[in-house]
């Protein structure tokens, strides 16, 4: 079932018209597997950083994830809104010109757990990511880029409140 | 009509509602509660016929019944009188808006 949306008029915003190419019929397998708790390993390999996701503050999460601290760098371009239209869906993206990037992570400082997402960037993958995160309240969004073993960061405050006139 | 004007207007309406008359000192009885509730429900029924009920009236009516069920007739009467005042305000709003809506109409 392939919803044809190649014609430009079908797209509200003409941004790189692509079409849905969906061949394989994915099978939704809902079964219980013993998903062992894995030791906290550096983010650069494929293991799920369970420990890092448990940390409260962004500093602890960064330490649990990378075991070192980051320095701010203007080569890390963090794109986030001034005022989030809604705390449940905040579009946040990062791009960097730093060389051989192996990992990119996003932290939301005042969320119950600061680490929101951590990405492994194999060689040949462009160090730029866009995603949509949840934010509990107005706070700092921090993007960390691991480039040739060193950590670089960018930080931006995003305002978050509820909407509507109360009722 | 500027938003601040409607703010003042709302405050005046709610102020008028809150300063209801003073209550007799003796402990209220169930009968007093029943009469107060009947008046409030009649007013709310009329507001319903005018298709203009307020959610706050409904919550006060519910609070009145809940307080009465718990035997707190003083509280129940206070809530029923509040509901009555709110219902009457919503009736007033419906009747006054019959003509006043034109004030804001784009022409």
């Amino acid at each position, binding site marked *: 079932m392939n919803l044809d949306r190649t014609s430009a008029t079908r797209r509200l915003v003409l941004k790189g018209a692509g079409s849905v190419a969906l061949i394989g019929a994915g099978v939704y397998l809902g079964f219980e597997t013993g998903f062992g708790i894995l030791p906290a390993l550096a983010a650069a390999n494929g293991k799920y950083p369970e420990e890092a996701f448990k940390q409260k503050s962004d500093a602890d999460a960064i330490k649990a994830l990378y075991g070192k601290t980051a320095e701010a760098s203007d080569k890390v371009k963090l794109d986030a809104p001034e005022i989030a239209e809604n705390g449940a869906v905040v579009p946040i993206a990062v791009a960097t010109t730093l060389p051989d990037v192996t990992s990119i992570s996003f932290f939301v400082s005042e969320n119950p757990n600061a680490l929101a997402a951590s990405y492994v960037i194999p060689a040949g993958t462009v160090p730029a990511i866009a995603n949509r995160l949840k934010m509990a309240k107005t706070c700092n969004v921090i993007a960390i880029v691991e480039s040739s073993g060193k950590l670089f960061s960018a930080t931006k405050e995003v305002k978050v409140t509820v909407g509507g006139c*109360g009722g | 009509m500027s938003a601040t004007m409607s703010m003042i207007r709302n405050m005046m309406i709610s102020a008028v509602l809150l300063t209801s008359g003073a209550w007799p000192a003796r402990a209220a009885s169930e009968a007093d509660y029943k009469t107060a509730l009947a008046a409030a429900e009649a007013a709310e029924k009329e507001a319903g016929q005018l298709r203009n009920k307020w*959610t706050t009236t*409904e919550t006060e009516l519910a609070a009145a019944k809940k307080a009465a069920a718990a035997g707190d007739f003083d509280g129940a009467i206070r809530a029923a009188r509040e509901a009555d005042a709110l219902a009457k305000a919503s009736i007033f709003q419906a009747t006054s808006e019959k003509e006043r809506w034109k004030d804001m109409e784009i022409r």
Partner: protein
Amino acid sequence: MFRTILCPAFAALAAAALACVAASAIAASDKADPKTNAGINPVADATAFRKFFTDKFPKVKLEEFVNGPYSMDEDLHKQWEEKEQFAPYEFALETGKDMFSTPFRNGKTYADCFPNGGIGIRQNYPYFDEKEGKVVTLELALNRCREANSEAPYSYVKDEMASLTAYMAFTSRSKPMDIRIPNDPRALEAYENGKRYFYTRRGQLNFSCATCHVQSPGEHIRAEILAPALGILNAMPIYRSEWSGMGTTSRRFITCNSQTRAVPLEPQSDEYRDVEYFLSYVANGLPISGPGARP
């Protein structure tokens, strides 16, 4: 224009301590309401309506009014563009497409109930049904189609209805809204009733739809920015981040009512059908942009 306040002479209320501004008492009895057709002029209304908003927002292109809050604020527009790359209503849209072509138990499908098989017709809804003498909205027509084929009607505020209207809206995307008012006094009355509902203040907050969407579009109510009333229904149904789910026109009307502390009416009550008729008519010519994503 100073709004006079009539001092309410409620029997139940003792003399209020507050100084009461006694104003000209509005006659309690209802003045003869101008029901004559002369007083109702939808064409003039629509022109004035459109001019009000294009004057108020000269920098916003006419067809952009259908994007609601996103045409009012650059930072919000950027977030919307990001969302539209892969919009959250994708799933509802595809579910709606499946549902639309899945036959009822009697083998018929929605296509048999609608002109042109239901494809590319959303811009003509709601319409005035001269047999019934009332406005018929798309959501109502869909449920009537289900009942005509002995299927249970869907809730007007839940996902199934939103998916169906999302697909039908999608097939009409960018077509101009095209609502007609037949030369029938009942149609004019329905239109007027919708306009009256739109401008009537309700709820303890004493707001009308116009208080927010005519007086203060572009302004913040906490995090949200108010949409202009011009073309406000063109993007229906909408996926709202606030609800993290789809919302039909009915759901939007009901939640707006509760926000002003007015008790909502039954979905698809005459008032809602008429106000949808009014709002769609004055948006004639503006493109359909549903299904939409909203804060």
